[in-house]
């Protein structure tokens, strides 16, 4: 049974979410603050986390960064704010997804399930990006000196999906479908921020990308 961590300070929402996920067969750990959430995660090793942004004490972004530093688990940020700046900030702190309140419960559920479903693709061949060697079978990226470059699972899937397209352009829609597993909840900002994060890791100069390039108006492609 998947184990979900819910960090939310509003008692009513937290209880409702717990009931809903329990009803859907999840093991639920819930915390009313970021500090408690991080402590719970250390003990319980959750499979996925939902974190509210507006928390007393440690903010949702800080909680998210703390969990990310310990694990690759999928993290969904839940926020009352929908400004692009907030979405970007949330995703930059390491979250894989961002949902705005008031959300449709089925949508949140579908997204959490999509995150749990996805596994790194085993089919893709290994390839080289400048100094980097990407080995999808092992799920690792190595520098030429053998040291490992850490990518989150979402970043890794983004990279391997683009590589599997063989230089073809993938639209944001395509990427949402393939990487996030969403059919219709697409928010193109999810893709844009993750692309930026990935560039910071793999590009020699992230401001002038040479591998992961933007095809304006269409989408992204990987130049091997």
């Amino acid at each position, binding site marked *: 049974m998947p184990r979900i961590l819910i960090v939310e300070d509003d008692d009513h929402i937290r209880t409702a979410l717990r009931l809903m996920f329990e*009803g859907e067969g999840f093991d639920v750990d819930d915390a009313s603050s970021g500090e408690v959430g991080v402590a719970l995660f250390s003990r319980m090793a959750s499979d996925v986390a939902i974190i509210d942004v507006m928390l007393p004490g440690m903010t949702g972004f800080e909680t998210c960064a703390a969990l990310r530093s310990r694990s690759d688990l999928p993290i969904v940020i839940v926020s009352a704010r929908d*400004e692009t700046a907030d979405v970007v900030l949330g995703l930059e702190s390491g979250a894989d997804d961002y949902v705005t309140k008031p959300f449709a419960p089925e949508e949140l559920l579908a997204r959490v399930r999509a995150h749990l479903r996805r596994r790194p693709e085993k089919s893709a061949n290994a390839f080289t990006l400048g100094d980097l060697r990407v080995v999808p079978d092992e799920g690792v990226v190595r520098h030429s000196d053998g040291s490992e470059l850490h990518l989150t699972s979402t970043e890794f899937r983004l990279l391997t999906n683009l590589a599997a397209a063989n230089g073809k352009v993938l639209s944001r829609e395509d990427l949402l479908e393939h990487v996030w597993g969403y059919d219709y909840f697409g928010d193109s900002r999810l893709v844009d921020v993750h692309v930026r994060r990935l560039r910071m890791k793999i590009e020699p100069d992230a401001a002038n990308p040479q591998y992961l390039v933007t095809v304006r108006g269409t989408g992204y492609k990987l130049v091997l």
Partner: protein
Amino acid sequence: MRQRSLRLRLLVTFGLGALVLSSLFATLTYVGVERLLVHNQQQTDLRQSYVNAALVRSTLYESPTEIPSLLDSIEKSTSSNVLVQTHQQWLSRSPDASTSDVTALIVANVVAGHATHQTLNVDGRVVFVVGVPIPSVETQFYEVFHLDSLEHSLRVLLLVLTFGALMTFFLGVAGGLWVSQRTVRPLEEVSEASVAIADGALTTRLVVGHADREVQQLTDSFNRMVTQLVDRLERDARFASDVSHELRSPLTTLTTTASILQQHRYELSAAGQESLDLLIADLSIFRSLVEDLLEMARSDANATSLVLETLPVVELVRQCVRSAARRHSIEAPPVEVGADVADPWVRVDRRRFERVITNLVDNAHRYAHGAVAVRVARAGDQVAIDVDDAGPGISLDERDHVFERFFRGRAAHDRGIARGTGLGLALVRDHVQAFGGTITVAESPDGGARFEITLPIVPEESK
């Protein structure tokens, strides 16, 4: 009422005023000076003639043979022509002196013993003729003075006065320009600022520190008015945004618990299930309403949340139509691209543009059995995106109102169609206007409604 330009009126008033005043002044001056000069000249000539006549008389008495040389010296000293008739015989020295200069009337008068003088126009020249009878020697003395030099002076005077009048006229026009600039410019600034503010540039203010007190007062009160207006707008927008924000948390709980109840619906009685369906349906509307209100508050409050990108319109429309169809689980209408479209680019916020297309396609689905087609065509330096349906259309009297907030058309009432939030089309219009475009509703070639968006095409060089 016919509109006239204040600037032009000021200019004409000043110009004409200066022209009339200076012409009047010049005319009066000319007439006065002319009279004075002519009068003086005539007095001098008269006196001179009497003196000359006395000389002629004494010479006739004492030594008549001296007469020719006397006449010579008179003519030389006064630059006139002298004619003397003595015993019916004319004496004249200068070759151009002619008796015809002296009219019969003068001669008759003088012969009758009256001294006479008259101004005559002889062959285009003005002459002053003086006739003096000298009865003691049966002689009449005539002197013809030429007023050429006087005429010349008057012509010079006329020239000077005309030039002066013209100068005054031009000065008047220049003054008019200056005054109209001074008075009309501030009005134009107010007008320009008002237009800018009406178009949404709420940071527009008039420049303070004007030299004229009245203008400064106008500037101050205008700026104060705009500041208060903006404050009020922001307060309203903030209020809507705050209210919606506060609604988010309870609404999240409500929707989540309703969905839990849905999982347990078969434990409920028939009445319980029906109530749950109503609850869930209205919660869904409630949620859309709060989302729309928040989006509206955001687009009201600041333009900074706008993330503009330059994108190729055809591909963008295709993507948006696809994702709109997916989002609402409906069949995607075909995107038809006009032959002349090429591949124009537009400057839009991707998310908001998607919202626009989604709302229009969803509306067509809701009220008109779905969109027949989304058509992209070029219209000059604009691109037109038409969402056409084959539904009942929108009546003429409703077309002006469909973009108003919370407007509900009759069609929606009559046909008991699932309710929308009433904000969808208002949001659509807000977004399109934020991209510098327009949206109108008309009749589609398929018999239903056509929502036509026009967006400015980004020129090739600034892509």
